[in-house]
């Protein structure tokens, strides 16, 4: 249990994030990650699993996901059909139990990372239904009468986009970390990790206009890290001169190739209006 997460070469983990991950790792409690979209919540689990050499099991939660599906599902229809066909398998109920992600994670001999992605998408009672299972890392299979207990308690990472509030009882059992939006210094570190040979001037100018865009009041959807990275890639592909980036900014306000940054029609309109006002003022 002496493993510690220190971030990886592909992922810049701030110190508070590292502490939170290590606390969850040591105390074997779930870690709840919240933050603006695109700040790398899901990627964190992947990187933790890579850094600590643990297998990653991902459970994507949707609005229709039930807690039971994470444990197991009993496939009654197949069994009914097999009984019609006189299949031998029908005698053992175990053949018709489909293991869920939690079961899969519990069975592993080696400790794994279990990512429960976007838990807030599911029904409001979903987290409550998983309380016991996550707390004690065991559950009971009614059909076969066996209790499945985790061989090695997995490191559970849960992400939430804040669409629904999570129940207090659930929160009490977790460690919590809010990934705040990275500042310019962290951001250029992140960029360097992704594009090691990017021109520094381009980064500086692009970042400046990126944070300017984020600061525009009334934006419906602020561009996030992943959008910035896409945008930079485009800028590099098009081989746009860093200086024009700045110049155009002053005159036009809309950065070139803004489609990668601004994904909302209303936001584009907003920018066009602002650009118009800026031009009028200059004249």
């Amino acid at each position, binding site marked *: 249990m002496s493993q510690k997460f220190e971030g990886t070469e592909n992922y810049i983990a701030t*110190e*508070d994030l590292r*502490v*939170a991950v*290590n*606390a*969850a790792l*040591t*105390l074997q*409690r779930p*870690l*709840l990650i*919240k933050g603006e979209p695109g700040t790398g919540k899901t990627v964190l689990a992947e990187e933790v699993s890579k850094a600590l050499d643990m297998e990653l099991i991902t459970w994507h939660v949707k609005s229709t996901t039930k807690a039971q599906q994470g444990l197991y599902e009993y496939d*009654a*229809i197949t069994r*009914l*059909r097999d009984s*019609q066909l006189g299949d031998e398998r029908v005698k053992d109920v175990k053949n018709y139990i489909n293991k869920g992600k939690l079961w899969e994670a519990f069975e592993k001999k080696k400790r794994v990372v279990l990512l429960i992605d976007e838990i807030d998408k599911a029904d*409001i009672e979903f987290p409550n239904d998983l309380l*016991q299972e996550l*707390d*004690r890392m065991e559950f009971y299979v009614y059909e076969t009468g066996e209790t499945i207990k985790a061989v090695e308690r997995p490191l559970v990472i849960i992400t939430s986009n804040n669409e*629904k*509030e999570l*129940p*207090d009882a659930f*929160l*009490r*059992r*977790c*460690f*919590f*970390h*809010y990934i705040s939006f990275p500042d310019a210094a962290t951001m250029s570190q992140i960029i360097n990790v992704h594009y090691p040979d990017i021109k520094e001037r381009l980064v500086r100018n692009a970042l400046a206009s990126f944070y300017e865009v984020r600061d525009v009041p009334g934006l419906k959807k602020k561009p996030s890290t992943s959008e910035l990275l896409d945008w930079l890639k485009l800028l590099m592909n098009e081989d746009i001169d860093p200086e024009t980036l700045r110049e155009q900014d002053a005159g036009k306000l809309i950065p070139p190739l803004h489609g990668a940054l601004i994904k909302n029609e209303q936001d584009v309109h907003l920018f066009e209006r602002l650009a118009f006002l800026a031009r009028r003022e200059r004249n």
Partner: protein
Amino acid sequence: MFVNFFHELKAQNVPVSLREYLSLLEALDNDVIGNQVEEFYYLSKAALVKDERNLDKFDRVFGEVFKGLESLGEGDIAEIPEEWLRSMTEKFLTEEEKAEIEALGGWEKIMEELKKRLEEQEKRHEGGNKWIGTGGTSPFGADGFNPEGVRIGQKEGRHGKAVKVWDKREYKNLDDSVELGTRNIKVALRRLRKFARDGEADILDIDDTIKSTAHAGYLDIKMIAERRNKVKVLVFFDIGGSMDGHIRLCEELFSAARTEFKNMEYFYFHNCLYEGLWKDNTRRHTEKMPTWDVLHTFPSDYKVIFVGDASMSPYEITYEGGSVEHWNEEAGATWLQRVTEVYENCVWLNPVAERYWEHTASTQIIKQIFSDRMYPLTLEGLDGAMRELSRG
């Protein structure tokens, strides 16, 4: 030091519980961090704060409590958690209780048990003695019931505060009558559900399948549509004026209702219902919808919820032309009466606390028009209102 911190967080309304505090201590005990104060800050943040809205409060408290503290002695970190854990689990609780906690995993129980014991302690103490004796002779401490209570007293001179926190636990009705978050509202609104099967048949009807399979002699699969909440709700919000103070509460109610009910319509009115309603408050004077149209558009199986403080001059309800905004041909009471006649299920939710109702004449009049179906906008009241609506 940490106990103080914990209490200070509680005092500043950061929702921390014992369980979280203990996991912080457990983490310290397990050497998750070194002895840098920053690391301690990050760790306690991860362990104690569960909602980004509270991060700011947490930071303020942290700054206050650990002012001027740059490095923590290792001894402190190692020592205190152990004491706490030991005293919590061994001195306070019997073997059965320990087993119980393990079985239930619930700290609520422990809290209650602790509180009960403290109360007992208080009774035994009634002899004119001081709550805590000086010089360490207090039976309160010697008893071993509340060792760290005294410990805190000695260290920080804040024993009174420690007990106060326990005392605060006494209003465990808290969730019931005061704190009304979106989540709680949603859960209360769930009472108002009317399931019906509608739409595409995409779920296996096991009972029917078994029946028809047995009947036909081959596998005959029957499908059925999924159950969905079919309840239809019509909400009227009082807006502006005296309602301004209740805006947050109403917004929470509104957002919860929006996601909970698929068929929900809402309209705004001011103070009392008259011949016009509107949907967009910024254009209230230009885009009014006649109340008659509303009554005719939505069939009588809609459940009607009025949200308003019902506090106004009685004339605004009972007289023609009583409205503060315009000349109304018919009295507000007539309109309210019409609504209650069209819709069998209607309630009035009032954000004003129930104890003030009898002092306001207008509240009494409306309550009468609604045949006493006025409920306070608390969880309990909401629960009652939903029960009333789901009748019939």
